[in-house]
């Protein structure tokens, strides 16, 4: 299998928005079941990298492979298939606030079910789905909120709904974009811990962007440092050089210009 054994693979992938290079020849490979934290200052390209991995953003140069498919040239239909196997937890949750929790969660399966089935799911969810959703909500700790309107939930609870929606996709991999930025600091640790636990239990590949390098070191065996669109380091937290960390968050303007 060789190359195709990895879940995600970037080969010298660049992304530019107009004149700005968001990512500059980034190469990384993530194996199935691996847990990777992408750390770095904001604006360093973390979100763009995650969006590259499920084809929301297409590379302007280089190649992206996800779940064995080269995303760059994939027709829309096949791209949707790949995406339906990748759960993406968005920074700002991206739920429909005036729907019930169960409806938000069930829409995780929209990518894999027919239109009529999806309509039925939405209005009259089947009992098998309800059981599965209830079980997922139990895992994320909000089982009693199944029929609650989503906007009546606290920020932390809404984040659990977003996680549940991604899990209901029955994904092979989870991508989480700064999941701690939408909850208060006290909850941040819980959220990271929950996501790593869930991925471990289900054997999912987890790739999470994080601003907080301490959290990353605590929960992830592999950390990728991203600054100004370039990979500064890619290593285990134990072998991470203090100088590399300093360089990652160094805010001197000269440094930023050089990068």
């Amino acid at each position, binding site marked *: 299998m060789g190359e195709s054994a990895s879940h995600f693979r970037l080969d010298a992938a660049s992304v530019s928005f107009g004149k700005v290079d968001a990512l500059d020849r980034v190469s990384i490979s993530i194996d199935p079941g691996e847990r990777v934290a992408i750390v770095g200052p904001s604006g360093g390209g973390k979100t763009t990298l995650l969006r590259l991995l*499920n084809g*929301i953003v297409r590379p302007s140069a280089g190649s992206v492979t996800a779940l064995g498919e080269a995303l760059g040239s994939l027709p*829309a239909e096949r*791209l*949707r*298939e*790949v*995406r*339906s*196997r*990748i*759960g*993406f937890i*968005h920074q*700002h*949750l*991206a*739920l*429909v*606030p*005036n*729907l019930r929790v169960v*409806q938000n969660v069930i*829409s*995780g399966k*929209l*990518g*894999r079910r027919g*239109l009529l089935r*999806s*309509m039925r799911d*939405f209005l009259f969810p089947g009992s098998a789905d309800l059981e599965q959703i209830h079980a997922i909500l139990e895992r994320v700790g909000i089982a009693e909120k199944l029929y609650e309107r989503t906007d009546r939930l606290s920020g932390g609870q809404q984040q659990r709904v977003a996680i549940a*929606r*991604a899990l209901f*996709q029955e994904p092979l991999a989870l991508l989480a974009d700064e999941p701690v930025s939408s909850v208060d600091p006290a909850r941040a640790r819980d959220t990271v811990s929950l996501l790593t636990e869930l991925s471990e239990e289900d054997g999912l590949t987890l790739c999470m962007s994080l601003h907080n390098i301490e959290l990353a070191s605590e929960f992830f065996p592999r950390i990728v440092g991203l600054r100004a669109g370039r990979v500064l380091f890619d290593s285990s937290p134990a072998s991470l050089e203090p100088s590399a960390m300093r360089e990652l968050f160094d805010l001197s303007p000269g440094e930023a210009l050089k990068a």
Partner: protein
Amino acid sequence: MAKRLDQNLGSRRLLLLGIVAAGVLALVQLGITPGEMIPSDASGAGVGKFFLAALTPATGADTLLIAARAALTTLRFAALATAISVVGGFVLGFLGSTAWWPPGARRNPLRLGALVATRALITFMRSVHELLWAVLFLTAIGFSATAGVIAIAIPFIGTFAKIFSEMIDEAPRAAADALGASGASPLRVYLFGLLPLALPDILAYILYRFECALRASAVIGFFGIPTLGQYIKLAFEDLNYPVVWTYLYMLIAMVIIFDLWSGSARRRIAH
């Protein structure tokens, strides 16, 4: 910043002045003088008689029965026309909106062409008033109940389509993008990521338009369908003003009752 505010204020003043000037110009062009607005003695007497009859509407059992029946017919026509318009409005509103388009679709000339064609059709449908459609049907194919419903439905479909597509395009995009990122097709993104967000506003607007449909349905009666308008017209021709007023009160009562109900319904939808 302050300078820009001043400029805005300036352009607003200019707009207001422009509107007033256009109004004065229109009066002059149409040759309307204040004197003309006061009716002559003869027509003044007619007008006085008409408004005096408002105090003594006909209350005979026959008249009331006809009024009730005509009100029911008016309601039926309005409901049917609104129902057709909502369906048509959803279809054209979907085709006339761009929020559900997959990224990059804006560069597709076929899509853009279809969008422009749809929006042109929507504009055409709603720029011709329902009464004008009724006249067209009357002269082209003769008037029937179906023609009456269609005459109301055409401009209503256009209005619904325009408003629905705007509401959809203005809904927050985050949830739609998230569904797209999990592999949902554009139609599903529209149905489950955008429509639910716009639905409360859409429902409130449908209720509001139903009130307009009630009035339209009554007026279309002048063209020969048995809604309140037809009976008002007949009574008018007989100069039977008390009866005219009974029907007018019936129409007003219908609108008020519906408004009271829809007001509370709209509040429930909003929460």
